[in-house]
Each structure stands twice: as C-alpha cells, then as structure tokens.
C-alpha cells in the first residue's frame, strides 16, 4: 500500500509541475502541428506512387507522427532529472523513507500520461485534414504510444542517471534517437525504400511500432503486424523499465 501511495505522490507532484506550466504543452504541440500543416501535404502527391501504403497521406503520416512524438517526447525527460540531481531535489527525496521505485514510476507515469494526451490532441486536430480513424483503433493507438513512451522514458532516465550531465546526455540521446527515427518509416514509408535500407530497418523495433500504428488506424486491429508491433513494444518497454528500476535502486539507493 505504502509504495502505491508513494507512486501516486510522486506522480501527482510532477503532474502538478506540468499543469502549472501550460506553456510547455503548447511548445510540445507546435512541432507535430507544423509537421501536419507543412509536411504532410507533400505526401499527398506521393500517395499515388506504387509502393505507398493504403489509406491516404494522413492515415500513413499521422500514426508515424505519433510514434515520433513518443520517441522524442520521452527521450528528453532525462533532462529534468539531471537538473533535479544537480539542485539536490532528488537527494532531498532520497533521504526520506519514500520508495525508491516510486521516484521512477511516478515520474514515468506522468510522462506517459502527458504523451497520451498530446497524441490524442494531435489525432483530433488531424481529422479535419482528412485522417480517418477507427474508434477502437484510436484506443489501441494510444496504448501503443503509452508503451513507446514508457520504453523511451525509462531509457532516458537510465542514461540521465548514468551521465548526470546535460551536454553528454543530449549527445547520446539525440544521436541514438535519429537513426531509430529515420529507419522507422515515419517521414516516408519504408515501402518506398531500396531493399538494403528495408533490410536494415528490419532491425529497428520502432519500424514495427509504426506498421502496427498504421494498421490500427485503418481498423485492422488483429492483423499480424499489430500483434507483432504491440508485443515488441510491450516486451521492450518492460525490459527498459526493469533496467531503469535497477539503475535507480543502484544510483538512488
């Protein structure tokens, strides 16, 4: 019971920090909306190409955009942890009997909730542009975004605890996130890619998440690609959470 209360306390604190600074949400939404308005129209003329996935430009692009949001939105959460480590905020919490795991879970849950809300807003904004969604597909999509968020938030906190320095953290996180993004078929579908690139992309777990996301938006909820994408993200999210929990219990014992 006590650990659950602790998770709630930590979650509530960080949610409060976010809500009291609404400008942050606006900045987080600006980029995806710019992509929707300034980039997605380019895809319209490509949608007739051979190899372009079915469903139209927005149904191909928006799921990818949400996966991208999941990746970059969560990968940067470690910055705030590094700042708090430096300010002594984390130390001050560590000296209380609060559950160490709660210090991680409370934050990660806040990050996931934040991400899911942003994904929902972007999806709703995209509807007037011509996005078609299956209602149950939307729910599954948000679940998938939550798994992606949990995966990359956990990794981000692990790297932050390891490096404890914003500069090296930024270098590591953004250098490793970019190839993941480029090889995931978010900006342009990988079906347009040459064979060798497609083969490399097969090693990228995020590519499976993007395929699953496109399928659920079209309502193909039980397709093999959906099962594959969701289980890969679920397994990786769990593994990353365990990794983060271990580094928290070691670094913040």
């Amino acid at each position, binding site marked *: 019971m006590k650990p659950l209360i602790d998770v709630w306390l930590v979650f509530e604190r960080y949610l409060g*920090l976010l809500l009291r600074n609404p400008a942050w949400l606006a900045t987080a939404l600006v980029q995806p909306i710019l992509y929707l308005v300034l980039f997605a129209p380019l895809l319209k003329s490509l949608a007739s190409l051979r190899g372009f996935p079915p469903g139209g430009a927005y149904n191909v692009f928006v799921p990818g955009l949400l996966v991208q949001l999941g990746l970059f939105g969560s990968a940067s959460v470690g910055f705030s942890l590094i700042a708090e480590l430096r*300010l*002594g905020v984390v*130390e*001050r919490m560590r*000296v*209380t*009997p609060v559950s160490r795991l709660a210090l991680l879970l409370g934050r990660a849950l806040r990050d996931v909730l934040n991400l899911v809300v942003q994904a929902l807003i972007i999806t709703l904004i995209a509807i007037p542009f011509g996005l078609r969604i299956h209602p149950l597909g939307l729910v599954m999509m948000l679940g998938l975004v939550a798994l992606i968020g949990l995966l990359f938030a956990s990794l981000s906190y692990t790297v932050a605890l390891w490096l404890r320095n914003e500069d090296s953290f930024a270098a590591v996180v953004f250098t490793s996130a970019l190839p993941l993004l480029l090889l995931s078929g978010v900006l342009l579908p990988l079906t347009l890619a040459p064979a060798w690139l497609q083969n490399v992309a097969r090693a990228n777990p995020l590519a499976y998440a993007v395929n699953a996301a496109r399928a659920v938006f079209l309502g193909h909820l039980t397709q093999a690609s959906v099962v594959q994408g969701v289980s890969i993200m679920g397994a990786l999210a769990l593994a990353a959470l365990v990794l983060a929990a271990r580094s928290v219990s070691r670094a913040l014992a």
Partner: protein
Amino acid sequence: MSLRTDRSRAGIMVETRGLRRVFSSRRGPVAAVAGVDLQVEEGEIFGFLGPNGAGKTTTLRMLTTLLPPTSGDAWVAGCDLRRQPRQVRERIGYVGQTGGADLQVTGRRELVFQSCLYGMGPAEARQRAAELLSLLDLEECADRRVRTYSGGQRRRLDIGLGLAHRPRLLFLDEPTTGLDPQARFRIWEEVRHLQQLGTTVFMTTHYLDEADALCDRLAIIDHGRIVAEGTPQELKRRIAGDVVTIGVGDSDRALVALAGQPFVREALGADGTVRLYVDRGETAMPAILRLLDGAGLQLHAISMSRPSLDDVFLRQTGRSLREQAA
C-alpha cells in the same frame, strides 16, 4: 565495549567506529573518509570543521544513508546505519549543501509534499507545512515560487524541508555558505532555537567563527581523519599562551632566527608570515623585534592575539583554514 551496549546508554545520538569511504579515481583508490570515530550527544550542536575536501560532506552523506560506507559501523538516532537505513531515514532530517527545493514550486507546496513523503495524510501535511512556515518566518513568501526567494529565505525553507517529520536529529551541511552576514546570523538563531526545542544538530562548516559561536562541541577533520575534538574552549586552551603573528620579507630566515629561542614554544611560517606560540606576548614581542633587527630582516607587521580555532587547525594540520576560505 560493543556498539550495542553504547546504544543503550542514554543520550548518544550518533556514534561511529572506523567509518571509511573509499572512492576510486584515475590514480587509484582515495579514502575521502579514512576511519572516523565520533560521538554526538543528544541535545547538542555538534560541528564538523574542516577545509573543503576534508571529508565533511562524505561523512554526512554516509550518516544520512545517501552513501554506503566502505567499512566501519555507525549508529544514528538509535538505529544501525547499515542494517536499518529505513529506520534511520524516518528519524533524521537532512539539509544538503545545495538545499533541495525545486525553484518552480512554492515553498508551501514543497513543505506539504515533503511531509507527505514522510507518510502524513494531506490534511496533516498542510497543517505541518503551516507550522513550519510560521516557525521559520516564511509566511510572507509561502505562496511564491522558490525562484523568487532571497538566499536566506531559501536556506530557511531548506531547513524546513529537513524538519517536516519532526526529527530529533538534524544534519546540516554547510548551512550558511554563500549567505550574507545578516542571513547567516539569522540561520544561527534558527539553529539555536531548534536546540531549545530539543533537536540535536550535526552540522558541517568551514567557517571558524560559526564553529566557535554556534557549536557546543567540535571535531576538526582534515584529509578524512579527525585531528582534534572537544568544545571550542577546550580546543583553544590546548594552545596555551599567546600567538604573535609577524609579517616579514623572508619567513624562512625569520624562522631560523626565532626557532630555538627559549620563549618560543612553537613557530610556524610560510609565505612571509610567521606565527609564534609564546607564553607571554608582552615580553616576547620586544625580544622578537630585537632578534629580527639583529638578523637584518625587515618587519612589515606584528600583532598579538589569543589562540583561535584557526590556531588549533594550523597546529593540527600545518595549514590555515582562513587562507583557504579567502
């Protein structure tokens, strides 16, 4: 005598035996704390005095469960530090050097949150936060973000965060570093007030005047070892007589001229300053002047004083704390 029997003896708040912490560095292992034995009694203000890097903070971080000791034992507030870290956390308060309040949050909110982390319900936590704001005279800035606080207000809030659960033992790491004289004096008053309320305070400082004015007992630490321990009075009394400080062009030659004189108990010199420990300053000073004159050494300054804690530190370590702080 085992630690367990000591614990049952009333009135010991902190006791350590051979407490060590070794860090690995590029040049091999470095003992930041190289075997510390100390006792802090209930109700006292205990000071840990030493220069930066002496091992004060490392010791404090071990005693507050933040850093596991490499070896040694410690009992803190009646609990075994190694075996009962959780119980230790419930019983102690800790205020780190950097404080720990988030700049984006209001002081009141931080105090409520901290009280909740110690297991209080929301209503109780709000009540406790209000008490602390009044105790530390923070009511006027309670609902502003910490970012807007003055240095002294922030420090008082940090102390409030360490007091949320009414600990009987409070650890303060360099509580007045970086504060202006008025704010420092204010913190001293708060610490004395806490003592009156029954709290035992274990603090580190590298300020001699702070250690002298505030602490009931002191341990002087250097290179990870305690080099002297006692009340400020006791420590100073160990250096009997007066201290004559001379400013001279060539301190090495001055030392040669003065050392060995029957009235000089001890002479220390470096970088143009010589400190002489003498029985009677009034009679020693004319003799010193004659000797230096005879040796052809030019004198820039001469002064006489009672021994200070800095003399204690200098005697034990060969270095002056005052020079390091400057």
